[in-house]
């Protein structure tokens, strides 16, 4: 009997729901109101804890197929690209208040495009830069000038 991905996910969710369930019992009750603020969360968390425990059990009793020849035919997944993309988005969100919307957005669009499909010629670099600048300029004018949304200004750049 071995634990699989579902079992581990179930265990994590079970731990979270039990921890929060205990916390929900510690919430203060209110005068007049027949049910306190912890009443509804306790129902949700109990439900989640039971379902998570069942997921763990289901995973433990599940028959696991042995590695089958030909399993390598499944489409390849490029997780490296996903990690890079998340890192670039994280950097963008971090830099937005520091560099301001215009600079951070141009850098972000350019960097993510380059990471996803690296330009191989000068022309492709020009197209990449044009898309980065175009996205920034169009979104800035539409939101700031037309829709009156004040986009972030940079603490470092004042821009």
């Amino acid at each position, binding site marked *: 009997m071995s634990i699989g*991905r*579902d079992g581990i*996910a*179930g265990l994590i969710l079970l731990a979270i*729901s039990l921890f*929060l369930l205990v*916390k*929900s019992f510690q919430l*203060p009750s*209110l005068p007049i*109101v*027949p*049910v*306190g*603020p*912890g*009443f*509804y*969360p306790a129902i*949700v*968390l109990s*439900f*989640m804890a039971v*379902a998570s425990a*069942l*997921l763990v059990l*289901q995973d433990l009793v599940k028959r696991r197929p042995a590695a089958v020849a030909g399993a390598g035919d499944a*489409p*390849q*997944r*490029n*997780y490296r*690209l*996903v990690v890079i*993309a*998340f890192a670039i*988005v*994280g950097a*963008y*969100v971090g830099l*937005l*208040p520091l560099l301001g919307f215009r600079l951070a*957005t141009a850098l*972000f*669009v350019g960097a*993510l*495009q380059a990471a*996803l*499909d690296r330009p191989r010629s000068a022309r492709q670099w020009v197209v990449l830069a044009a*898309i*980065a600048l175009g*996205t920034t300029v169009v*979104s800035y004018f*539409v*939101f700031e000038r*037309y*829709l009156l*949304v004040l*986009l*972030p200004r940079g603490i470092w750049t004042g821009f």
Partner: protein
Amino acid sequence: MLDLLWNGLVNVAQWKYLVPLFAGTLIGVIGGSLPGVTITMTVIVVLPFTYGLDPLAGLAAMTGVYVGGSTGGLITCCLLGIPGSPASIATTFDGFPMARNGEPGRAIWLGVWASVWGGLLGALFLVFLTGPLAAIALEFGPWEYFSLFVLAMAMVAGLSESSLLKGLISTAIGLLITVVGHDPIGSVPRFTFGSQFIGDGFPFLPVLIGIFAFAQIMTDLEKLNSPREPAAESLVGVKLEHFSHLKVNLEIFRQPFLLGWATIVGLIIGILPAIGGSASSVMAYDQAKKFSRTPERFGTGHPEGIIASEASNNANVSGSLMTIMAFGIPGDAVTAVMLGAMTIHGIQSGPLFISQNPDIAYGIYAAYILAHPCMLLICFVLMPLMLRVTSVRMAVLAPVVLVLCVVGAYALNNTMHSVYVLLMFGVVGYVLVKLGFPLAPLILGLILGDQIEINLVRAIMTDANPWLFLTRPISGLLLLAAAGSVALAIWQHWRHQNRLAEEEPDF
């Protein structure tokens, strides 16, 4: 009622509403035709543009996206053999073979015209049935509302493709997200751990955008630059053959039963919460095949398959709009975003929505009706462009969509807080997808969480007897249906497992 509808049509025909409606429809058609870009993602991209608009203008734009997106997907189906959006999935079965047989124009325009007629037939139901449904909903007390929401969640969790348990856990996660922050009755902070970041809870739209858009984009990026499967023969850039629009329309109207039944299937699926256009398209296709005199021709470029799928997915939009306007429950993820947009503008959807906001309600009906001629015009004028737009690269699309997601979150209250929430739930959404948890139940839990709690507490405050949830007839029936839905899902899962076990070779 017809007076109000006429006023709505005249109102929406003004430039200040017609321009957003047309723009939304155009973006919807383009978004729908881009493989990997769903209608939900397109409506999320359009969302920040609607903040600064008049509420009806914003909702008209979103309705346009919804209608346009439901049709746009068929172009990709016919030219690439893959659905541009999940709602068009069944169009691929006959649209692509017909296009490959040398009739791409007939395939695409059969779909476009079937979408128009299915959508307009759906509009009849939308206009005439939403009011009576809302009147029924008005009779509901907190017990019935609570039970209705429980039924909606049970149905969605039960329809999860992966597993019922994961669907139920996903629902619970959605509900859990809504309890973080101050409780709705006494404003007591819950699960905030003294943090200012989550002190006010998580704003709905950044969570929704994060979970949906990131999960989808990142899943698409996984497949980027990987050795592709041998692609089916692509017809991108193909020149459409000469054909008669009159003949295409006659082809549709020679089968009034097919058109009517596909519309009704789409409408019913749309009314049921969070099932979505893909189910309506596949179900209508399946029904068309069962009722057809020539079922053996399905899958070889049979016009009936295209008509059923496309009429159904556009009628599905009207069903979803009915649910949101009569009950305040989103029919699918697109109407969930619309519900969020309504909240931003201070509009409460639900049974009182039509009587309290007749201008907006009939404006939405009018926008839905007018979106169809807009879509038709766009298809007539921009078809040559549409035939090429399907080849836009993900490397270009992803950064642009992500920028609009960030702006959409930021513009909610002009703080970075929402952007951080967006990123956080983007990671959560992607991880959940990778672990095989369906997102639709989570979103429904997220949307209904507050309402479930409020109605539960309100019911208990009115009468502490918990048996009332079962003994009040409508509430009891709804809870029974919820239990039945879960039981059916368990039975279907058990039957599927048994069938797999029987098919397994015994060595």
